[in-house]
């Protein structure tokens, strides 16, 4: 069985497309039906059985960025946090176990060809079709195709037409259910979402209590140090953990203060009366470190919309304080019309509870 090679195309943003094709779009409807549009011409998407199976595996370089190399990190390269993706023993194609999958969208985001149908919060399916696009691809040898063509996925494309209200809550319910059995699951899931947003990141290994950092990531020259609290049980401690982690990174590992970006990922934003917001403002005022705070919800939205989180481009944004307790404007700037697309827009996934 021949597989399409993605050698030399490290990023999911760089796949394959015939020369001369300017626009490649994957459109996903609410029922998980997927359509590819090549310069406006619709095709039925199909799994190309990639060599490195990006829907199933992260690269080692993605999960072990070159920072804090002595840190014993979780070595899991699996994209699916519940290990629902395997390879069919007969065909070798990736396949998704519908019983295990809960439709989080990670594999959907990773597939460069739109060949995973996603019903958000329910399940994902590998799509197979003897469609025109297969013939189109077959018109060249797979190897030549790989060498000569480059897919440039338009970053502004919408890959889902709407965000089902219940789908996302199903995802969160499932995350919390699994977290109750395995507390480190929240770190693993968050890491995988950040990887999909183009942030190489590692998390501490299970049982390692010496490292007081949930996640450390790298994006170009930026070193991202993250504290993750999806259940809201530790929110007031988060600023302390970040101040500690920054000090350790700078003092012991010689990481320049300028390159460190503190990141907080919460399940939902705290109550507006919480001291959390004021504390982040204090840290900025006193130490000049600008903490970025995201809800997992918005990170998943970014992932579903195939956005990347470019820290060089969001200076000053997603930085909360006593006087700024929501991310609504920034979110709308990244995804125009989000207020119509997301039922939860304006909720505590976007800012402080009233």
């Amino acid at each position, binding site marked *: 069985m021949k597989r399409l090679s993605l050698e030399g195309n490290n990023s999911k943003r760089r796949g394959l497309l015939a020369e001369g094709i300017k626009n490649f779009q994957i459109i996903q409807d609410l029922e998980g039906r997927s359509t590819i549009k090549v310069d406006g011409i619709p095709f039925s998407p199909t799994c190309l059985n990639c060599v490195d199976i990006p829907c199933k595996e992260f690269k080692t370089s993605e999960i072990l960025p070159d920072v804090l190399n002595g840190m014993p990190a979780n070595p899991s390269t699996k994209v699916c946090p519940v290990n629902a993706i395997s390879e069919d023993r007969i065909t070798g194609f990736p396949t998704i176990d519908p019983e295990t999958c809960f439709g989080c969208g990670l594999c959907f985001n990773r597939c460069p060809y739109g060949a995973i149908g996603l019903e958000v919060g329910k399940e994902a399916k590998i799509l197979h079709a003897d469609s025109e696009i297969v013939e189109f691809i077959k018109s060249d040898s797979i190897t030549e195709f790989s060498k000569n063509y480059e897919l440039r996925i338009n970053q502004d494309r919408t890959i889902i037409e709407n965000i089902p209200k219940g789908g996302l809550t199903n995802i969160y319910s499932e995350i919390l259910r699994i977290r109750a059995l395995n507390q480190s699951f929240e770190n693993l899931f968050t890491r995988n979402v950040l990887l999909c947003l183009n942030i190489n990141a590692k998390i501490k290994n299970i049982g390692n209590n010496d490292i007081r950092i949930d996640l450390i990531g790298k994006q170009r020259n930026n070193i991202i140090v993250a504290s993750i609290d999806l259940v809201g049980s530790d929110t007031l401690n988060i600023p*302390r953990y970040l101040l500690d982690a920054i000090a350790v990174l700078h003092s012991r590992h010689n990481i320049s203060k300028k390159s460190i970006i503190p990141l907080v990922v919460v399940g939902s934003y705290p109550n507006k009366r919480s*001291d959390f917001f004021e*504390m982040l403002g204090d840290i900025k005022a006193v130490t000049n470190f600008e903490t970025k705070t995201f809800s997992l919800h918005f990170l998943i939205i970014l992932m579903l919309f195939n956005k990347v989180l470019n820290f060089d481009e969001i200076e000053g944004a997603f930085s909360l304080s006593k006087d700024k307790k929501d991310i609504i404007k920034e979110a709308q700037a990244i995804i125009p019309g989000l207020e119509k697309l997301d039922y939860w827009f304006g909720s505590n996934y976007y800012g402080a509870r009233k």
Partner: protein
Amino acid sequence: MKRLNINSLNQPASNIWDQLLAEGKPDNKASAIQIIQRNLITADQRTFYPLTVKILTSLGYNAAIGNQGDTSNRVDAFIKDASYSIPIEIKSPTEVMNINIKSVQQAVENKVILLSRQFYPTTLETTSLVIGYLYPEDRSGVYELIDDVRYTYGFNIGIITLHDLIVSLWEKDFEAIVFDKSRITNLKGKYI
């Protein structure tokens, strides 16, 4: 066993030895400190916090318990000064026996809050204090973190046990040794 007279803690600071040694003062410092330490090992926040503040007051500081219930000012206690105010993180033995990493993390946060919100005047270098029952375990990583914090933020985190505070107070009250208040104001790491 001689018990700490908790109810007497609201009395004037001059009576502190009567309060600490309710059944009479031993002749020597070592015995007195031993009795006090033994009596305090089960002290919770309600006892330990006001006692700590009272000892600091007796040493000459303008110390006060923080505003409990004020979410914007969660510091346990303050030494108030016209120029060099100090936030204090207090750990009673029933919370943690040894000063630990979390205590230092909270002291760093206290320093950030005080510098930003300016409840009282202070400087970057003025210590942020942790007072606990015992010094940290050697392998706790506390001393390394204190060094990291100083290197990264320029904050001095000072740690002191109640034992050492009481020894200083004894020396001041009964051995006529002048207590140098700057020892705490400029404390970096462990009190020596």
